[in-house]
């Protein structure tokens, strides 16, 4: 508080953080008004995501491996991507559902308030119901660690954390990018979903199984390999290049682009008229 009083910059950040947690506590309380519905949703999401695991399990028990990756290794990769996505949807729910926010004129109201639009969007649309997916990804992750022969070192542990943070930010960035498009189209564009839902679905396998060309697209155009393939190689001990574990930092560059697109969109926003 003492620092905050002296420095207006700190005071602003401080009040922003406070407001964010206040938003989350409101979201939590309002969700808990419908407890049965909430727990059914959580259970639903939990079970829903078992489809994917069962699919991977059936495929790998039939084929034994895919391009040299065993079941445990695929599971580890799958669970990290799943967790990235679930966290991004939970935190960045405001961007993920931005179409309806624009359409219902809710964004106009947000702009009238004396706080940043991003902060309000992130806070007010915190998707606590995604907890089912996160729990499930954690369970899968623990199982993946148990069955995959990862030789754990400090560096590898840090790599997993970087993959999680980087991946969550990457998906959040895609949600932000999609929201930025919505400023111009109003209508949601389904094709953009392939960048998020598609990546979550197909990113369950390490990206090199899709061939060289797809790897190149997913490195230079869409930076998926930074949080999936490269750090995974280091994690599974398939390469001596320790710096692969640091690749998730590259996501920061991507986020800058997404943010710029968002700013650009916001400047050209002309209300949906509702």
């Amino acid at each position: 508080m003492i620092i905050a009083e002296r420095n207006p910059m700190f005071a602003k950040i401080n009040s922003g953080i406070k407001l964010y947690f206040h938003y989350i506590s409101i979201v939590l309380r309002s969700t808990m008004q419908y407890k049965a519905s909430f727990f059914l949703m959580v259970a639903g999401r939990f079970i829903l995501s078992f489809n994917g695991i069962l699919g991977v399990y059936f495929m790998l028990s039939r084929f034994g491996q895919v391009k040299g990756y065993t079941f445990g290794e695929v599971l580890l990769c799958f669970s990290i991507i799943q967790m990235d996505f679930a966290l991004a949807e939970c935190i960045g729910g405001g961007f993920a559902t931005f179409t309806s926010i624009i359409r219902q004129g809710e964004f106009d109201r947000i702009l009238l308030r004396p706080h940043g639009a991003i902060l309000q969007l992130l806070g007010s649309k915190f998707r606590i119901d995604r907890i089912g997916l996160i729990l499930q990804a954690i369970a899968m992750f623990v199982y993946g660690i148990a069955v995959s022969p990862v030789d754990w070192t400090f560096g590898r542990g840090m790599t997993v954390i970087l993959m999680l943070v980087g991946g969550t930010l990457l998906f959040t960035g895609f949600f932000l990018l999609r929201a930025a498009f919505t400023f111009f189209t109003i209508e949601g564009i389904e094709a953009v979903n392939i960048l998020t839902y598609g990546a979550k679905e197909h990113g369950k396998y390490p990206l090199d199984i899709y061939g060289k060309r797809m790897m190149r697209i997913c490195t230079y155009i869409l930076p998926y390999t930074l949080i999936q393939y490269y750090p995974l190689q280091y994690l599974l001990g398939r390469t001596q290049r320790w710096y692969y574990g640091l690749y998730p930092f590259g996501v920061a560059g991507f986020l800058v682009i997404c943010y710029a697109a968002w700013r650009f969109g916001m400047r050209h926003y002309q209300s949906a008229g509702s």
Partner: protein
Amino acid sequence: MTNYKKYFSFFRLQFNMELQYRVAAVSGVVTQILWGFMECLAFRAFQESDFSAYPMAFSATVSYIWLREAFLAAFTTWNADGEIFDSIMNGGIAYELCRPVSVYNMWFSKTAAGRIARAGLRCIPLLAIAFILPRPFRLMLPAGPQHFILFAITLLLGLGVTVAFCMFTYILAFFTISPQGLRMIFTSMVDFLSGAIMPLPFMPERVRKIVELLPFAGMFDVPLRIYSGDLAGADMLRGIGLQCFWLIVLVVCGKALCRAAERRIVVQGG
């Protein structure tokens, strides 16, 4: 005859409404092509990992994937008619009950129309593109004219089974105020059991034998494998027989349940 006319107009109404969303359809087609392509690549990686374990011809898998994408809108249970759910949730159902029509038949025709329109709009560009893709990923022609005819018939039967199943999810909404969670569980189950996630031959032998007997196999697996000739002979006849059997069972049970639901319905003001 006049009796069926009114259901046909519900059908036409819904059909026209769906045709309004053309831009959404175009962007949906692009998504689906990319999606299908990624899936083809994944199956190829598996095939290259162990040729001997691959349970069907690769071209049959590719055809399966493209046809699934082409007719996905007709067969997914997760995008069941939101309007009908809304009418149950917000009490609009009261108006529907006043009409001199059977609720079951009305919803059945509405749901079927929505699905046919959506799929009809999307399948043409999708199939056109799938037919001109480079070699291993190209959608091949049906195994023969008789396969194509049987494919068309089983596709319609499959649609019937799907819609009849969706009716159950609507009726479920009568009994619980918040059907979202249960619906999610149902649809994820169906996704898996119908072969939407992967063709049934990829499942382990024992699991597959059970899954093939369930009504869900008739939604995707039977028609899509008949097209490529992967499902033929006695197995095919059994598949078609099961489709007919389940269609009748689902419709009869659904109607009975719907009547029971109508009798105990409480519209909560509004």
